[in-house]
């Protein structure tokens, strides 16, 4: 009974240290912006040598302290990106700049499981406006929610033998356990509104392409 109480308790949230959050914010937004820049550049074709350094410059710009940094203003508006978005960005960047270290992002495998975070985002959005009879966000502080999420994140591997999505998601949850980033709430580690919008935009784009033949 006591174990169940511990697992269900939302009264023992462990928040990250403010210093860690500060480092994570600049690094996280830097990686996300660099990832977006690289994605935009790659869409325009082969990268000239001078363009290859642009994402890195964006990352360094975010590390600049104070209001001159984009991370300062992104933090004002959107606080911090999720661990998942940051890891996806880091994977994308590393696999481009160091292809011998990392294989490219397994987009096909990831897209196969994208419906789950899209639905989760809708549920969390409605929860923010109190449209559910209970507070789902608050459950993100409970160890049981964390445990269930680990199991669900392992499903692609244990059920279908597809390892990469599970490795990515369990890495997010492991980092969350150790560092509590970004807020101490597991929902914020797994999904942020920008990633949620991105997943939907990607789904919409693929549907439109398919419709156009």
């Amino acid at each position: 009974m006591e174990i169940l109480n511990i697992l269900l308790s939302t009264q023992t949230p462990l928040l990250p240290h403010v210093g860690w959050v500060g480092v994570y914010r600049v690094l996280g937004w830097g990686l996300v912006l660099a990832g977006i820049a690289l994605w935009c550049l790659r869409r325009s074709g082969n990268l000239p040598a001078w363009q290859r350094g642009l994402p890195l410059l964006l990352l360094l710009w975010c590390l600049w302290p104070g209001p001159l940094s984009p991370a300062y203003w992104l933090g004002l508006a959107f606080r911090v990106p999720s661990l998942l978005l940051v890891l996806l960005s880091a994977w994308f960047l590393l696999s481009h700049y160091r292809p011998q270290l990392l294989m490219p992002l397994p987009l096909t495998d990831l897209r196969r499981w994208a419906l789950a975070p899209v639905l989760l985002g809708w549920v969390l959005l409605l929860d923010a406006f109190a449209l559910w009879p209970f507070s789902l966000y608050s459950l993100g502080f409970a160890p049981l929610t964390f445990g269930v999420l680990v199991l669900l994140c392992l499903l692609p591997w244990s059920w279908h033998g597809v390892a990469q999505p599970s490795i990515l998601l369990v890495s997010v949850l492991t980092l969350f356990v150790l560092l509590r980033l970004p807020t101490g709430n597991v929902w914020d580690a797994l999904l942020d509104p920008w990633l949620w919008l991105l997943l939907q935009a990607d789904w919409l784009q693929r549907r439109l392409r398919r419709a156009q033949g």
Partner: protein
Amino acid sequence: MSRLSFSWLHRSAARRCWAGLVLCLLLTAVECWLRAPEPLAPKAAWPSGTEAVTGPLVLQAAGRIPMPADAPAAHASTLLAMPPGHPAALQAYWFAGSRESGPDVQIAASEFDRTTQQWTPATYVVNRHRAAAVLGFGLRRLGNPVAWRDGQGRTHLFVVATGLGGWAAGRILHLRQDAPQQAFHPLGVLPLSWLWNTSHLVRAMPLPLADGGMVLPAYFELGIKYPVALRFDAAGEFRGMMRMSQRGDLLQPTLLPRSETEWVGLLRDNRAQRQLRAVISHDAGRNWDDLPDLDMPNPDASVAGLSLRPGLMYLAHNPRAESRAQLVLSRSSDALHWTQLEMLAQGDGRSEFSYPSMAWVDGGLWISYTEERRGIAWQRFMPLPTAR
């Protein structure tokens, strides 16, 4: 990502399931192990020295709290009782600047000195630029400070700090002062919502708990408006949140304990009906139920409640639905039925006396409130000694 070489594990679905289960149990065990122990069941606490209050309260002193220089606007004060032996009887915090939500608004503070029986000159204690420099991200506007002393005698400030969007897109910034005369340093923004953590605000005083912690009433304000109760332990650590109502038009809750575990929340009404609204918890804030309207007009304005002991509660509120031109003090034994005692302030229809705060200090009831959005007024009531 490097290709996995654990082929013996990878090949069998049963092995993968078992490995996944073990990994899940391991990570969940680490998650549980790292956490603080479950806090004790919350129990409300009351101010000490209130047993002698049996007769009526009489006004003993009143005035205005000094304003900072070059700050023509002031609003949303909060009072903090200081312990016996402290040079100040109580401290007041409010926001001041050129106008509400102005870019120059800062959190101002003053304290009532026990020796001189005067308020000290106001000083600014929270500046958005300095706080942003520490936090590493911008803060657009500041407002609505709420102060609390933790079990170690440190002062905590909870301040609304806006990001992108207007006032309704605010967040709750948590700051702490570790010793008198030290600066308040930002501890971070409370994590209360998935949607970029927007639209949780504070206004009313916390409900003190017997374990040295407190429950901070807060509310969501973006479109739908609903109250939440945030729990903090004696060290000032965040210990979770609980939604207080299923309705979508309630904000700025103030908490009144009727017993250790039975608490009433009184709320500002955002509907056209303009009534004071109420919610109740019978289990110390774990579950809340909506109550019928109290049949007390309220002009969509903040109220302040203070419970001195079970069966004796005071409420400072605006009693007219159409304006904030009157501010009164009422008394109740159950937090639901109120008797008007005193007219604290009144003016013509355009006047505003609003956003009260209360504290019980040195055997007297202190009330502060916004006066015409230009200053913070205060009044002190003392109980009449009972005839022997």
